[in-house]
């Protein structure tokens, strides 16, 4: 199971890198969103997938699943949500201001 998920993470990272390397601003932002999902999955896999029963809810199981990765992911999801929202607004403002969402057109500052 871990192997499968790891391969899935690899696929997600591939997709994300492809998107990140494109010139369209929105694609780049989608790329960062997928990238963060990939790493969340990886965090979960690294903690080991479902090795025991649910933690905290009872004391009579033999082993429990590690709850820490899930807490980490929850925090990371919230952060990546905030950053993605910010990026989207930023992209919209930039589009409004410059009339372009092509990263080639947004290169550098003219007066240099």
């Amino acid at each position, binding site marked *: 199971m871990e192997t499968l998920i790891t391969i899935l993470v690899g696929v997600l990272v591939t997709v994300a890198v492809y998107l990140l390397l494109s010139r369209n601003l929105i694609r780049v932002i989608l790329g960062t969103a997928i*990238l963060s999902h990939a790493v969340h999955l*990886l*965090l979960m896999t690294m903690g080991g997938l479902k090795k025991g029963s649910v933690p905290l809810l009872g004391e009579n199981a033999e082993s429990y699943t590690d709850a820490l990765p899930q807490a*980490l992911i929850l*925090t990371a999801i919230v952060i990546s949500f905030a950053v993605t929202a910010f990026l989207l607004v930023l992209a919209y*403002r*930039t589009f409004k*201001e410059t009339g372009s969402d092509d990263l080639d057109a947004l290169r550098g*500052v003219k007066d240099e």
Partner: protein
Amino acid sequence: MNNLLVMPMVIPLLTGVFLVFLRPYVRIQRIVSLLSVLGTLGVAVYILNRIQTEGILKLDFGGWLPPYGILFVADSFSALLVVTTMVVTGILLLYAFSSIGKAHENMFFYPVVFFLVAGVNGSFLTGDLFNLFVCFEVMLLASYVLITLGGRKVQLVESIKYVSINVLSSWFFLLAIAYLYGTVGTLNMAHLSMRVAEAGQDPLLTVIGIIFLLVFSLKAGLLLYFWLPGSYSAPPTAVAALFGALLTKVGIYALFRVFTLIFYHEPEITHTMIGVMAALTMIGGGIGAIAYNDVRQVVSYNVVIAVGFILVGLAVSTEAAIQGSIYYLIHDMIIKALLFLLAGTMIYLTGTARIERMSGLIRNYPILGWLFFITMLSLTGIPPLSGFIGKVYVGQGAVEAGAFVLLGLAFLSSIFVLYSLLRIFMNCFWGETIINEDDDVPLPKGMLIPCVLFGLLTVALGLGAEGIAVYVSDAAHTLMNPDIYIEAVMNGNR
């Protein structure tokens, strides 16, 4: 009373939230923010002094003993940096009062500055790797807002690069954390250090260490500084100074923490890498600093050179060198803030950022000119100013470790700094004045006073290096002996 340890993060955070509600009342916002900075500074100084008598302080949140809970740890290194952060922030706020403009003040400028400071202080004080990530993100989100606030075209375009590169580096940070958790099963820094020492730093762990090196280098601008000059020259002066003084320093702090506490077993790999990167950073920064005619670019490349210089201390990793790095780190936070303020003030006065379009400023603004002169000497490391002592110790450490190439490059970089700033000084301050008496822009007192304060600080830090020597040597001693840190975190009963 150990709860005090969380105050350097909580006071700015609450102040930030509080100030959001005071949006229309600019005057009250200013008073509250100054009081809050002073209060935090007081707490930080108190913590620093308590560490000297009681050893490393820690605070386990919710009473969860390490390695299970999250905790804050304050040793001399982090406390010193918190104190410096608060001093620099206070003076920069003074500058912002007179320069940032009504539009910014009404658009939550002060709250965001406080969120940034909360993130910075949190990063310095935390003892947990994931918590470090969270504090980094708090700091970065605040910095995203600060860099875009105002919404000029340049700012928007530059901030896209800044935000995307930081999102990517945060991704690498999480990746490294995931791998590390999968390998050793803990995220508490002291516990990590123990486990890595027990298991031996095998190639796998070294690779994870190198991923951390990549992450923090991106944040600190060590070799991977390509994003830095553009982003730091876009926002208003006060914000640029805040970035130049604080943001890269957090990355440097994290590098020191991780590579002296956790991944210190394979110095021939990791520390050599840091050394090579530091050398390349100094060369690249030096070339950048003398290549541009734009004051803001020159100043930004000076940040890059300093990053390289400070990390020479970590690369050679002797106690003297680390001491030097800490002295230089503190000096650099103050002097870079001053340098950015001076550059911004020059641009404000002349309306241009090009060196060749300014001339003879010292005739109209003598104090500004002399301050620039002092800054230049201090950055180059002329005694008795504050840059001197750090350079001496780093040099001594490099000689002890036999790293003569790094030593040569480190001191050669000083010449590049001198040349780049001398060029600004001679072009902009000497020569015939271009400003005739009719359109002489008056220099507001509110902009000059913060610069003078920073100037006094750099002189005071140079002359009074003896005064902070106790703290710095203790900080270096703790960094060089991870056992002290581990012992305090795992067994300290406070």
